[in-house]
Structure formats: C-alpha cells, structure tokens
C-alpha cells in the first residue's frame, strides 16, 4: 500500500485525484445547478419533444445492446480462445471504432449503405433502405459501442482458465452447457462492465448518427441530437434534456454495477 506521506506518487496522486474530481465534478454540478434554477424544469422534461427523444434513445440503445450481446458474446469467446493469426488481425479490427472519430464512422457507413454507397443500391433493390432511418441509428450505435463490450467480454473469457471447462466436461457436462454453467457466470462481471460502457457510449452517440441517420424528430433524433437542436432555440430545453441523459447514463452504470457485484471471489 502506498502511503501519501512517504511516497512521491502518493503526494502527486492525491493532488491529481483532487484536481480530476474538481475538473469532472464541476461541470456536472454546474449543469445540475443551472437546471435547478430553471423556472419550468419539469415542464421541459415532460415536453413532447423531450419524451419523444428519450423514447427513441431508449428503444434504439436497447436494440443495439441486444444485438451486441447476442452476437458479440460468442465472437468474444472465439477471440479469447483462438490463438491463430487471423484471430489477432480480427481482434485489432474490432477495436478500430475506438480510435475512429464517430463522424468519420458515419461518413464511412454512408459510403457503404448509402444510396450511392457500395452495397446501398443492392439493398435498395430488395426494398431495404438504411440511411436516415431508425435502423441507421441502431447501426451507428452498434458501430461505435460494440468494441467496449467485445473487448471487456474477451478479457473476461480469457481470465477463465480452460481447465474449468475441461473439468466440467469430464464431469459429464456437454461443452454447450459448460459454457452456460461455468464460462458465462465466471466472465459475467467483465461482461456487465463492458455492457455498461457500451450502453453509455450508445446513449451518448452523436457524430455517426448525425451523419448516417440524420436528425428527424421521432425517427432518428435521439437525446444527444435533440440537445443540439434545442440549443439553437432554448437553453432551458437543452438543459432539461442534458440532465435526463445524465440521469439515464448514471442509472445504467449503477444498475450494471449492482449486477457486477458477486457473492464469490477468488483470492
């Protein structure tokens, strides 16, 4: 344990912690204070525009997370257990969205699925239009948020020794059941952590959505886009939406934090 009095990192660390708490805490507090000073906060929060954006954000992010978890979990398992060169290549490709600016991601998706994109016309021929629809919102969220879940889940699976799976199978439990009875519960905390980060990222997604899905009320205008639109007319509306989004994000983190807590521990 590092003691603040006799270790330089202790002094610097304490100072750093103090500054960071102020730096991150102050804007959040300011947001809440300004929102509280507002005369018609409740009215702004329950306004049609706000509720429409909130509903869209919730629905799209739940769908994105469902897709990410259902497809990302087996994928992450494969990445964790495979030692081939291909797995490593795919592994780094999956993390590309983490460093790619969301706006660029939006443009790129437009180039792929857009009217004049690579496969956009082919999709249109069979009656599927993606850009500037609610589907595009989900696409954008999956694109930017999936690495958070996949990476964390992969690390979670890697931390489960293969021996547990071997032992389970010698005990007469099929590989499929072993996955659900041993591997998944042991990787659970890491998965929930990843899901929390991915969800928060999906809720806050702005750039790619703006580019690829547009800003249509009720169809593609999620909370972050609604905040930007509101800023143009009234600060009050933007404040109310911001507080709602903040509360939503914190709620997601707290709920998943509770799920991450485990009764067992490994020492």
């Amino acid at each position, binding site marked *: 344990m590092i003691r603040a009095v006799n270790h330089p990192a202790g002094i610097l660390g304490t100072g750093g912690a103090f500054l960071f708490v102020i730096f991150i805490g102050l804007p959040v507090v300011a947001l809440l204070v300004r929102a509280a000073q507002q005369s018609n906060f409740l009215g702004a929060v329950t306004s049609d525009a706000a509720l429409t954006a909130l509903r869209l954000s919730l629905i799209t992010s739940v769908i994105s997370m469902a897709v990410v978890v259902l497809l990302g979990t087996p994928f992450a398992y494969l990445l964790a257990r495979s030692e081939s060169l291909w797995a490593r290549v795919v592994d780094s490709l999956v993390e590309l969205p983490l460093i790619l600016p969301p706006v660029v991601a939006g443009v790129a998706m437009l180039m792929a699925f857009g009217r004049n994109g690579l496969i956009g016309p082919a999709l249109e021929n069979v009656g599927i239009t993606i850009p500037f629809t609610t589907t595009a919102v989900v696409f954008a969220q999956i694109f930017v948020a999936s690495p958070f879940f996949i990476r964390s889940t992969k690390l979670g699976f890697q931390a489960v*020794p293969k*021996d*547990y799976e*071997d*032992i*389970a*199978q*010698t*005990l*007469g*439990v*099929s*590989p499929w059941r*072993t996955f659900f*009875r*041993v591997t998944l*519960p*042991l990787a659970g905390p890491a998965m929930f952590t990843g899901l929390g980060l991915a969800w928060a990222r999906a809720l806050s997604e702005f750039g790619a959505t703006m580019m690829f899905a547009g800003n249509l009320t009720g169809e593609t205008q999620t909370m972050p886009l609604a905040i930007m639109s509101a800023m143009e007319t009234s600060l009050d509306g933007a404040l109310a939406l911001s507080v709602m989004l903040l509360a939503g994000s914190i709620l997601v983190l707290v709920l998943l934090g509770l799920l991450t807590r*485990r*009764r*067992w*521990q*490994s*020492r």
Partner: protein
Amino acid sequence: MTVQLAQRSTANGWVQCRLGSFNLETEWEVDPGEILVLFGPSGAGKSSILRAIGGLLRPVAGHVEVGGRVVYDSQAQIWVLTHERRLGYVTQQYHLFPHLTVAGNIAFGLRDRNSSAGKQRVTELSSLFQLEGLADRYPWELSGGQQQRVALARALASEPAMLLLDEPFASLDAELRRTLRREIKAMLTQSPVPVMLVTHDREEALALGDSVQVIDEGRTLVTGDPLEVLGQPGQRRVAQLLGVENLFDLIVQERNPRDGTMSCTGPGLQLEVPLDAHISGSSAPEGQQDRVTVAIRASDIILAKEDLAGSSARNRLSGRVISIESRPPGYAVTLDCGQPMRCHITGAALEEMGIETGQQLWAVFKASSCFLVKGG
C-alpha cells in the same frame, strides 16, 4: 454407505501423441479398485496420458477403453466426447468452480442435482469426505485439504467408470497427504473403480500404487510392482529418476557363485556386488570386458571414522570428505573413494562424528545394498 458404480470394468488402452519435443507412446491396463501410478519427472508426458484418456488431448493413434466401452480408436475412427466418457478427473490445483458453493461443486455433474435423490447423494459424499457443515461455503473459504476433498467428491458424484488423478496431493503438506492417501484407499475398497494417478513423489507411488509405470520423455521405461520397480530399479535411467545417488561403471574381475557375489573394479574403486544372476556362467566374448553398472543409495551407506575390519560388510572404502551439503532432513557427505561417493547421514551423526571437509573417513556397505542397473 457406499459410492455406487455402474460398471466394474478394467480400463486399458494405448496412445501415441505428439508432444512438443518428443512423442508420447504408452499403454496401460488397470483393474477396478487398483491404482496404477504413472511415475516420472515433470514434462515426461504423464499428464498428457490422462488428458488423452479424458479426450482433452487428441492422440495421433491409439485405442482407449473406459468402463468396458471403447471411447477412442484411431483405426475404427471412434472418438467419444469428453463429457460422454464417464470419468472423474482431479488436478493438482483442484479447479473448484469459484462461483459455486461446496454443495454446488459436488453436485455439478449430477443430472438430478435438484431432486431429493441428488441432494441425498451430495450429503452422502460430503460425509464420506468429512465435508459436513461446509455445504454453503465457497471454495476460497476452504483449506487446501478441504478443497481437495471437494474435488474428489465432485469427481465421484457422477459415478465415473475411471478415476484420473493428476498429482492430486502435490499442493498439500505431508501430514494431510498421508491422511488423504488413506481416505482414497478406503474409498477404493468401498467402490472399486480403476484409478490412474500421476506423481513424481516416490513415497506416494509406494504408498498408493498397486502397480507403477515409470515414464520418461514419453516412453514407459518399466512397469511392475512398486516395491520392485522403485526399490531396486533395474535400469540406469530409472535409478537416476528415483534419485539413486551413486552409479558406477565397473568391470567384472571375478565371480564367486558360492557367495552369490562378484568383484568389480573401476578407476580407483573396487566393489563386492551381488552376482548378476541372469548372465551368470556366461562370460563376455573373448577380448571384451565384462562391464556392469552398479547403483548404491546414499542412504544405504554407513560412515565410520575407522576401518570396520571384522564386520560382515563386504565393502569398506576409505576416502577424504570432499563436500558436506544440507539435504533436509539430514546431510549429504561426499567422499573421494577413487570416485565420488555420496552418503546420507543425520544431523546428529554429523555433529557427533564432527565431520569436516578433508577428513579421512570410511564408507561401509553390504554387497546386497548394491544393485546392478542396465543401460549406458
């Protein structure tokens, strides 16, 4: 109360596996209720044999029978998946599922674990392995010995047709090891199942093995009765693996069939050793020397300050002390008797005799303490 086992069949087979730097090639046969010990240094391929039997490692060729059923045959292209082989597999690290309680771990392989019969079985096994009152504990709340008992109970719960134990007691202290060995023996008399046990501990092999198979670099050097194989090993490599400290390459000078001994010499050394029975009478072809390798355990040698002339011991060699090393629980003293000779003595003996480096001492041992080993 007994642990029921559906079938009481011999487990046998052979496998060839490619393992890193060498090929594993071995065969085995274990009767129900018997323990076959796979003995050898780490990295010899012992664990791989268990993993091949368990279907956790795919051999190049082979034939494996468990519980009277062929679970692998390279020619007939039979490959039964691990979970259908009906095995109990216990490892050195136990690998108890950390997210499950003791009861949850024991019941893991039971199909009817939520029924009253399943719960009854968990209770039975808990009491057999003295785990009463621990049902709701998590693995990290248990001692090493308790964890290993849970691992054994878990392996037995689903009535395996064979038990594979991979250094199951290696992480436990000596006292606990002895206790668990007794428990395993007791359990086996109650519920006879073929057991293969991997160890590199000679004491454990002697205590548990009904037979022992010495494995080195993927090959079986010798199979047989533990006392015979591990007591006076007939092969140089086995003797080395068992830590027999003194090995001398000598030339036979004279055979004395009357005494059952022969006299052998090497550079600076003359020893009386047991007659090589199997080749007695036949002497080496004309012009060739009659070479033998003689082994003596360091613990079979007596150190004396004076020549024990007039004693029955056939071998009395004088030499200077080259080195004294601590070798718990005692000491290893090396004499230069023409060739270095290691002797084990207790700390008390070292102190009483006041042994120091450079001192002249006598190494005394019976001809019958020497044994001949084969192999260069």
